[in-house]
């Protein structure tokens, strides 16, 4: 059975990217799910799905109501002792690894942790394409068309007759609406080290790099931030190392001009209205593996201990208390260190890091 035609992306917009990801995921689930279903039916296992659901329930895993749900198929394909791999054409250890990668990416996507742009779309489609090829899915052709269009858009392609877009599905609309809220939040409160878009503060103080202190008329103002005031000031110096005049806005945002551009270098005290458990920003385009004593960037192969400016022992110790050797995690543009819960449904924030204990050049 040929996969249904998926509307080709026409622009690098949140709605278009989300639309293609949702539609392709759905088609992937339907095509693979139907193959799996037919396999079990041919063996006379009519109740295979309800039996799997019962088992998942017993094991405390998330419930799925639809055997064609891509997330269900990806989860079960890597679950120990699951009968599902036997029903997947071309299944291998390689298939399982790619499925696990796709599952993590889609999970991050559903948690709004991936930037909704062409790069993310291409990334997700690439993994889907590998799996579709290994299993001989007809969806492969549809994915190839989308990849070609992504390439064209990057080279300046535009629709001949720009006009109203086809209405998106309700799930895409809801997703786009959430993404907009998130984008607005990021614009108003960017990560430290990014361009500051808010009002320029009227209070001018001096960040003195020799004193590692912030001065107003020559006198330290660090005490205004409480007992850890000087620690805060030292954090600002990471983003404004030469020191000089800096400005503090009414809500405590501290900014300094770098080459004429206002950069957020920190907060005067704690950043207001932030839940410390919230995961903010989008994932950096890297996956990281905890090796047990270090962190490996899976895209570049480099080790954190060889790249970070500052000592990472405390950070690695913290990872060791939450992760097992070989576990993969991600880091957001805000420095939030994130991994999936054991149930593999939720994302958990382990800590927040700054640029100097991370791979050089990856965090602002």
């Amino acid at each position, binding site marked *: 059975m040929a996969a249904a035609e998926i509307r080709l992306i026409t622009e690098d917009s949140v709605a278009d990217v989300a639309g293609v990801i949702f539609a392709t995921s759905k088609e992937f689930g339907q095509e693979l799910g139907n193959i799996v279903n037919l396999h079990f039916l041919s063996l006379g296992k009519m109740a295979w799905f309800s039996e799997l659901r019962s088992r998942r329930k017993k094991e405390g895993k998330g419930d799925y109501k639809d055997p064609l749900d891509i997330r269900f198929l990806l989860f079960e394909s890597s679950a120990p002792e699951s009968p599902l791999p036997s029903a997947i054409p071309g299944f291998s250890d390689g298939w399982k690894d790619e499925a696990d990668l796709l599952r993590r990416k889609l999970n991050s996507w559903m948690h709004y942790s991936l930037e909704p742009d062409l790069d993310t779309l291409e990334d997700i489609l690439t993994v889907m394409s590998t799996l579709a090829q290994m299993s001989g899915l007809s969806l492969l052709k549809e994915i190839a068309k989308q990849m070609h269009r992504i390439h064209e858009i990057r080279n300046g392609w535009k629709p001949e007759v720009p006009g109203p877009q086809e209405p998106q599905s309700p799930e895409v609309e809801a997703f786009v609406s959430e993404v907009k809220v998130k984008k607005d939040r990021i614009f108003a409160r960017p990560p430290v080290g990014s361009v500051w878009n808010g009002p320029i503060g009227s209070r001018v103080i*001096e960040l*003195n*790099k*020799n*004193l*590692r*202190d912030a*001065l107003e*008329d*020559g*006198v*330290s103002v660090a005490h205004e931030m409480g007992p850890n005031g*000087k620690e805060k000031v030292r954090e600002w110096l990471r983003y404004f190392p030469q020191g000089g005049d800096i400005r503090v806005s009414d809500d405590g945002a501290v900014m300094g001009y770098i080459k004429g551009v206002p950069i957020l270098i920190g907060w005067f005290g704690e950043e207001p209205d932030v839940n410390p458990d919230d995961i903010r920003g989008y994932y950096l385009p890297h996956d990281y593996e905890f090796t047990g004593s270090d962190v490996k960037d899976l895209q570049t192969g480099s080790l954190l201990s060889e790249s970070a400016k500052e000592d990472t022992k405390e950070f690695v110790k913290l990872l060791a208390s939450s992760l097992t050797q070989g576990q993969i995690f991600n880091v957001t543009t805000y420095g939030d260190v994130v991994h999936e819960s054991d149930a593999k449904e939720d994302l958990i924030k382990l800590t927040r890091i700054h640029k100097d204990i991370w791979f050089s050049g990856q965090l602002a």
Partner: protein
Amino acid sequence: MEKIQVGLATIEWLELDQTWVNKPMGKGDFDIQGVCDKFRVTTLDGLNMVFGIIRWPANKPEVGYITHSSGELKYERLTSAGRLGIFDKTHGDESVWSFELRVMKFGEAQTQPTLKQATLKDLDGLLEGQSALELLKKHGAENVGKRIELAPAEVGNRPNELFVTTKARNNDLIAVGFTLTRVLAIMKDFGK
């Protein structure tokens, strides 16, 4: 702490024992951490400049510029020049600090003042009728004279410099000597 009057300048102590990270005067290619006692100097012509007496773990103490919020352009010179090095010697159980009273002097060919040898008479001229010797003694100077007389074993290449000794960590005298020879000298356009 009480403010100290030095001619038309006033010294005010700010925070003490502050972290200070920089290269010690005339030494080192990289920053190290020292400790700094901050003092503000204000003058009647509108200067508001903060300096620090800096103590290093293994180098001689010094006085250097920290920041300023106002003042005539000519004082900008003190942001990059005029640091004062302090000799730190131990005689028996007693530690002694000493320093040269070199003065910021404008020359005919120079637009910027530089440190030059001075006499007590020169310093008297910066003090609105006050005696430099009395001022230094008032703030704890033990000996004032030529360097070759007070430290004959360590005259260096400037034996005739005006020299002053005091007990170690006598911050008041250090700040007074610095203000007199740097700030007031520039204020009075010494040498012009």
